[in-house]
């Protein structure tokens, strides 16, 4: 059961990573003239359309993480401590705390992406979305690395 949830956690993570990265890149690379290249097509989407997907996937991802977190605490962290892998434990703890802080940012993120705030809150929108993207990338990479060291299976 935990293994199935861990795989689902990874799949939701990939979807979230894709959605927020697509939104972030298209937000940073706004061009009036587009050549039709892959990069232009990739960044040519309306970043607004990702907001609901990012919020839904983020909440689902944190809830799944919260369900499997006790299994990590018992089956992964204790062996890590016995193997003196303290840096890896610290990285994972950072991931959990960052993810929690990201949850607290979601209402603000959703609010900042309202069309009427596009100009007045441009910088906040850019930076809060970047912070969320950083949290998602950090969580994905650290989760992946720890799973490679010791999966839950």
């Amino acid at each position: 059961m935990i293994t199935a949830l861990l795989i689902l956690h990874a799949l939701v993570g990939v979807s979230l990573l894709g959605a927020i990265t697509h939104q972030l890149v298209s937000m940073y690379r706004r061009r009036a003239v587009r050549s039709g290249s892959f990069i232009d097509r990739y960044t040519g989407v309306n970043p607004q359309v990702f907001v609901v997907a990012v919020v839904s996937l983020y909440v689902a991802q944190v809830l799944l993480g919260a369900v499997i977190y006790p299994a990590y605490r018992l089956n992964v962290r204790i062996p890590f401590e016995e193997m003196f892998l303290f840096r890896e434990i610290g990285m994972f703890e950072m991931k959990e705390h960052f993810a929690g802080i990201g949850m607290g940012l979601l209402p603000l993120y959703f609010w900042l992406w309202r069309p009427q705030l596009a100009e007045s809150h441009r910088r906040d929108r850019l930076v809060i979305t970047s912070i969320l993207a950083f949290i998602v990338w950090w969580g994905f990479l650290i989760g992946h690395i720890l799973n490679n060291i010791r999966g839950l299976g």
Partner: protein
Amino acid sequence: MTLRFGPVSFAIVFCCVYALAFFTNLPLFLYYPLHGDFTWGPQLLKGAGPGMAWYGLMADAGIAALVLAFIVPDRLLDRIFRNYFWLFPCGAMLVCVYMLRQFLLQG
């Protein structure tokens, strides 16, 4: 008078309370996954296995942020912190890194 949820207040209070609760080691409760036990506050339960503070920290921050998001007017915080909202999550994340330094330096 109608109650309005303030996303700006929620985010700012959430970040501040989360960082403060983590810094002062004051989770609302601890969860012990070995037998599924809970204890209020940061006191460790002997013989219950490792305790987990993250759920308690989330509860601290979530409850405080939810309450204050209906009390503190968003307009006020928006006027003061517009363009600087990012300071709060960045500050909270730095506090977390500082609190976890012993793990990172031991590796």
